[in-house]
């Protein structure tokens, strides 16, 4: 995993409450191997019209949008299917952080595993940021994971980033949690032996 310490970037607002992972990446694309690059699938259907042409009004299709490393999205972003392809698509498109009032649970875990930082901010702050971006599309936001702060443009101030401390540590160091867990193997094995004695039908 690529370490994330801090990132300053312009922000694109992709509206839509309950934006589910089928919108982020339609199911028909998730059989692709990761090596093919998932950025081509990001918001595939909703950024195009019925004939497959890019919709110039979709926020990520506007000129300059490709520079953004941070997206502002709405409530319950990434709900629905557990497909990690939704996060692969964001990562491969260069997105490193997301700001929303709330995220889908599994999506949030998937993001953390891939070094993408989901930043939860109150609805009113998100709305104010959306308004600010409408008037100042080049405005910069800094997500500083090391300091645990996100700094918004204009008068919008700085806000704490609340994420699970263990996940934060892994992302800051670019640590791989499988390797870390393997260092606890003695305790896992001991626990497992007791569990299999209690529940002998577990592994036959």
């Amino acid at each position: 995993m690529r370490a994330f310490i801090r990132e300053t970037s312009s922000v694109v607002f992709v509206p839509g409450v309950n934006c589910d992972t089928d919108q982020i990446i339609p199911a028909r694309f998730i059989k692709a191997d990761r090596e093919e690059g998932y950025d081509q699938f990001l918001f595939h259907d909703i950024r195009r019209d019925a004939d497959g042409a890019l919709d110039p009004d979709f926020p990520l299709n506007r000129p300059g949008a490709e520079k953004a490393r941070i997206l502002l999205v709405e409530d319950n972003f990434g709900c629905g299917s557990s497909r990690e392809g939704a996060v692969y698509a964001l990562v491969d498109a260069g997105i490193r952080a997301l700001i929303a009032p709330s995220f889908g649970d599994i999506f949030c875990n998937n993001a953390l595993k891939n070094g993408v930082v989901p930043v939860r901010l109150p609805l009113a702050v998100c709305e104010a940021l959306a308004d600010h971006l409408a008037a100042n599309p080049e405005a910069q936001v800094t997500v500083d994971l090391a300091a645990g702060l996100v700094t918004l443009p204009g008068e919008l101030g700085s806000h704490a980033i609340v994420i699970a401390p263990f996940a934060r540590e892994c992302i800051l160091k670019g640590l791989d949690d499988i390797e870390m867990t393997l260092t606890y193997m003695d305790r896992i094995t001991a626990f497992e032996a007791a569990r299999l004695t209690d529940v002998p039908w577990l592994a036959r």
Partner: protein
Amino acid sequence: MVPVTKPAARTMFAKIWDAHEILRHPSGQSLLYVDRDLIHEGSFHAFADIKRRGLQPRRPKQIFGIADHYVPTRGRRPEDAATPAIERMIRTFDANMEWGGVRHFGLASQEQGIVHVVAPEQGITLPGLTIVCSDSHTSTQGALGAMAFGIGQSENAHVLATQTLWQVSPRTMRVTVDGALGTGVTAKDVVLALIARIGAGGAGGYAIEYAGRVVRNLSIEGRLTICNMSIEAAARLGMVAPDETTFRYVRGRHFGPTEEEWDLALAQWQQLPSDEGAEFDTEITLDGSAIAPMVTWGTSPDDAVPITGRVPDPASFASSEKRKAAAKSLEYMDLTPGTPLDGLAIDRVFLGSCTNARIEDLRAAAAVLQGRKAVVPAMVVPGSTQVRDQAEAEGLAQIFRDAGFEWRHSGCSMCAAMNGDVVGRGERCASTSNRNFVGRQGPGARTHLLSPAMAAAAAITGRLTDVRRLAEGGA
């Protein structure tokens, strides 16, 4: 003298969590032991991950592979797949399972089916277990008193390699459904009513326990349906305390305890229900008697209303977020505010998915269809090959065929349209599945979620129809 302290009352969720916590990291996250991991074709990313690391599945006997998302429903050979790319998914799955030494139920297996239908059926799902699967509807399996939840591919690779998972404990919510369900009202209607009430994000960060008279009186099939859609309210998982209904269901299933072990198992499972006085972070109560057959009008599962209702006016919603979303939904669904849902013309019917394709669901639909004909294209995709065989034996398959339904093989099929079974652009589909998202059943497809009995009623009239009226003999 040591003072005698009464142990604190615990929820079922806390009991199962505590029994699986290997250690707690100073940061607050817990390393949980995973009893069983379920794999489907989409898990190939996780396999690629552990192969890259030179690892193998650590506990292959606690991993079960089941082909469901991509399987063809017209035939049982990989070459029956809709496209070569889909065929490749099925073959890769078999190859990965063999490589990992994992027991698996492939396309042609008698035990094949949708993972969340097969796991309870085979006794893979049992009370008190922690069960994960890289599929969000893993919450289904909590109906047996298990802690079952969906994970992503990175987490799945972690489970394959270590049989554990780092987790932060969710908060707990109890949903109590009292009263009694009316005629024609099913578990699907209960859970749609719940989601409509609390919203698609309403249970975000929670583990739900379903309780109350209505839930106690439900069969395991009905409880599976309710727990299945917990995720549509953003819950981490759903669960129902095991009781006599559960024990009767579980006994004798293949991967469960043997008869010699039964008393030991029972003694453990009887300890699982939440203690009296256990506190939940949030309590929700629903009056089951007041629930009507439900149907969705929009593109989020919380866009659900009683079939007697009308398409809402976006302006009627309190929040600006919801007003915008509703307006967009109506445009996509091609609906006008104020239109009565009862009577809305549909183009096809899909009876299937891990929400509603178990034997009871097929019975409920067949009871409505008996002696009648579908007037729109309709298909039944049984939740598992065993359900399919049983439906054949009970004569249900014949009722479906006589009514003009296509009688397919088991799989996810049109629920997620990944195997090539798709709803056409602009088509309106009455579906017993769980998601009415934009494009979920195919690009441009319009989904109305409802129960199996309601789906059967819609097939007969070609319109969304209050099944209670049909049952009384009218049309």
